[in-house]
């Protein structure tokens, strides 16, 4: 938790330094609170990257998520509407921007945690759990008429002070078709050796039986996504989407048991407050 406070404090200091350089026009816009809250309800099919972790209970297939978008004086909490999964939320500050680009500093999660339950399911109970990979990133966004490209360079903090890095880039193209918004996207994320070794590596001291010592080194993940939104009523939208993720061979060769590719599908409705 102290690590999180440290990162947030750094973010605030950075933002105050940059805020003074904003022009007057932008200040007027940013002085106004902008917010939106949405509730997402629906069904979800999700393959966990860990091979032996499955959706088992009915509740595992139900999604109930609240997403928040909030902007004030350059600070933001931002759900990524161009992505299929509304649970992906970034905290950040916009350092500077032009008409068709922006530079932000953001705080986001780059790797899901591996809980004791996940390890138990993977027959690796004796391994220590892995924390979320919380990253502080510099994000550059380029806007086109119906598309957006982002690239993020992040320092990733995990395991009480250990660091790694990740570079994520994603291109999203919007196809407006009648009342539908259809988003097609693709991206690639590179993870440093430290990061990958922490999550799917096995130290010599932990190696037993099928869980041999393994240090995969740097790796990557490729994602492809299709996501669509349709207005059902003034406050309701229909959402459906599919995301396919492909992991590099050295990730899915881990003896912990990693899927070479995973699928995330969802069908649901959202209420816009």
């Amino acid at each position: 938790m102290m690590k999180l406070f440290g990162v947030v404090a750094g973010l605030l200091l950075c933002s105050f330094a940059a805020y003074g350089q904003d022009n007057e026009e932008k200040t007027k816009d940013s002085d106004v609170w902008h917010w939106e809250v949405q509730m997402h309800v629906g069904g979800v099919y999700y393959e966990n990257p860990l091979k032996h972790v499955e959706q088992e209970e009915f509740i595992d297939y139900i999604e109930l998520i609240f997403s928040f978008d909030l902007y004030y004086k350059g600070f933001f909490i931002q759900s990524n509407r161009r992505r299929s999964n509304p649970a992906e939320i970034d905290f950040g500050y916009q350092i500077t921007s032009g008409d068709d680009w922006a530079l932000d500093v953001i705080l986001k999660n780059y790797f899901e945690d591996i809980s004791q339950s996940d390890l138990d399911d993977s027959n690796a109970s004796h391994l220590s759990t892995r924390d979320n990979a919380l990253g502080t990133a510099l994000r550059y966004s380029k806007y086109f008429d119906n598309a957006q490209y982002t690239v993020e360079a992040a320092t990733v903090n995990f395991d009480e002070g250990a660091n790694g890095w990740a570079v994520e880039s994603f291109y999203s193209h919007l196809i407006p078709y009648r009342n539908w918004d259809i988003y097609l996207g693709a991206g690639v994320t590179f993870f440093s050796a430290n990061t990958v070794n922490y999550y799917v590596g096995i130290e010599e001291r932990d190696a037993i039986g099928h869980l041999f010592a393994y240090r995969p080194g740097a790796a990557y993940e490729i994602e492809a996504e299709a996501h669509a939104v349709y207005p059902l009523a003034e406050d309701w939208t229909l959402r459906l989407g599919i995301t396919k993720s492909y992991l590099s061979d050295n990730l899915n060769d881990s003896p912990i048991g990693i899927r070479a590719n995973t699928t995330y599908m969802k069908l649901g409705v959202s209420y816009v407050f």
Partner: protein
Amino acid sequence: MYSRVIGCLGLLYLGGISSCLANERASPLSPELSAMPNKCVALRKGRTCFAKITLRFRVSHPGRYCIVEQDKKQPLYCESIDRYGLFAFEFQSEKKLTYFLVDATNQVNIASTIIDVAWVHKKTSRKRRWRIF
């Protein structure tokens, strides 16, 4: 219409069923134009909203009548009708539009209805660079 029904019920109570129905047949119906649905919902302001709309109309006298869209000279539809008519069409607009029922013989608007356009994401005052919506 509601008042006519109430009136008829009142006469029925008094035993005048035949006179009630006769009066109803004799009184000319006022022209009406209604849309179903009467609202089109788009995701955000500025997007063209698409909807299949059915216009229902009623006239008081047989004749030739037209449906005309606001700010358009050419009618969308014209037909000779006795009393009731239906017209289905594809609504496409970024803003609400008024539709008129026009008596083709004298070019007089005799009824109108509005098809509204609403948005799910209404908070669009922000500039794009904030890219919240």
